[in-house]
């Protein structure tokens, strides 16, 4: 049985930049528990001989040749931006530190 706490939901919401109300914290905690339990059932069925699957298509090694392909012009790239300056995307002040 998983047990997701309200605090964990609040932390996740913060990481995902989601505004969550007090009531939603309770709702989501319960729902996330159910989801985790459902996923855990899969683990009970899968034996050690079953490789983890993240794709429904059994393909590997899909590569692209290292050749330049045309992309967007600067104008095209910036056309959907709410704000641009000097050919760059303009974003609000970044809080916190440089990466």
């Amino acid at each position, binding site marked *: 049985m998983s047990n997701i706490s309200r605090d964990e939901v609040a932390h996740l919401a913060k990481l995902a930049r989601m505004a969550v109300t007090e009531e939603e914290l309770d709702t989501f905690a319960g729902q996330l528990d159910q989801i985790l339990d459902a996923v855990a059932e899969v683990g009970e069925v899968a034996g050690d001989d079953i490789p983890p699957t993240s794709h429904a298509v059994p*393909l590997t090694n899909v*590569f692209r040749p*290292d050749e330049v*392909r045309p992309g967007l012009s600067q104008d095209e790239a910036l056309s959907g931006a709410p704000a641009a300056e000097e*050919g760059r995307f303009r974003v609000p002040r970044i809080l916190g530190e*440089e990466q």
Partner: protein
Amino acid sequence: MTTTVELMDYAEVVERYDPVLGLEVHVELSTNTKMFCGCPNSFGGDPNTHVCPVCLGMPGALPVVNGTAVESAIRIGLALNCDIAEWCRFARKNYFYPDMPKNFQTSQYDEPIAFDGHIDVVLDDGEVVRVDIERAHMEEDTGKSLHVGGATGRIHGAEHSLLDYNRAGVPLIEIVTKPITGMGERAPEVARAYVTALRDLLRAMDVSDVRMDQGSLRCDANVSLMPKGASEFGTRTETKNVNSLRSVERAVRHEMTRHAAILADGGSIKQETRHFQEADGTTAAGRTKETAEDYRYFPEPDLVPIAPTREWVEQLRGTIPEMPWERRKRIQDDWNLTDEELRDLVNTGAIDLVAATVDAGASQADARSWWVQYLNQQATSRDTELADVAITPAQVARVIELVGSGELTNKLARQVVDGVLDGEGDPDQVIEKRGLKVVSDDSALLAAVDEALAAQPDVADKIRGGKVQAAGAIVGAVMKATKGQADAARVRELILERVGA
């Protein structure tokens, strides 16, 4: 924002504590295109001109892996004596930051393509230290931010920021060491030597520009201290923004002295990112590190797994060149060099140039002398790297050949080299244009000899009287008269002939 930081004297630090290092090196691959799209991978360019829907993180755009980048990743892994995964996947590392348009970095998490390797690092005094490699994995670079407003162009006090995504999606290999322990006072030197060895290796493999100043090779240095004799690691800090080999050493040393002062004072180290400040060699606090869980890694659903066949891996193993330090050792043996001579070659960056000059027919002693001495001086005075001076090893070999055959004196040879460096063409063209051939016509030389002897009859008498060494003064006068274009040995012969000595 100036705060006084207490530092412990370095000698005391290493007496009381054992440093533990962990080095993370990011290498930008020099592929033609980005990791997951066909945009050009090149430094600079007008902002946002090397972009497309994939690297801008537009909804619905799908990545496709660059096969050459995977090949480079495997080759780097093999060169670092790693195992290559039989099957591995990409993963999404989720966090929000404006330089990352997708709001996640496509990286690898628990399934790196290469793992469990090592590299033998040679320190300045020849001691060899084995650094164990934890993993090397594939990921992508971020865009670049320009902070506007505020006094220094830095993030503090900036009013807004401008983003250029030309670099977003450039293939990166992150190479992570296992904890490096037991190095004591040599820890900072080991850190520098390790990054130097990696740089040399990557350059020899031709997989990256490895320019620390341009960010194509970046090192994050994790440092912690534990009291002497303890076995449990202390809390670490991760120092970023370390932009030169020398800075790697300075940053590690600074963090050791800073940690020690805090620990000795009964304080505790905060696990955080710190920024190296080139100007004074100190570090400043950055953000508190997020934990791995906070990144909510999960397998990348838009990319299929990579399963390198063993045949492919073995074929790539065959392309790994001789390691630079092995090559240096071999060259030292082949050329019979002292440690000091080898160090001169390595420090001036002349080793490949000398080797190429020898391949073009010159003797190693002549080739070494030209590159390490005259050309190195010229590089310095022209403010360029030795490798970038405007003369090829073949041209240097030609000059050496002409000196050997007596067609050029050393002095003339330097003028020929100057001409080549000044863009006047290859050595033979410079000789032609500047009229630099040795005067080998005896009649022309004899006239100059007679003139010089007549001008200094007392010297002529001395030579005649058996003082052969006095001929030097006449040789000098003839060389001066012929503007250095005479073969001094031949002039000497002619003088002795003339006076009948």
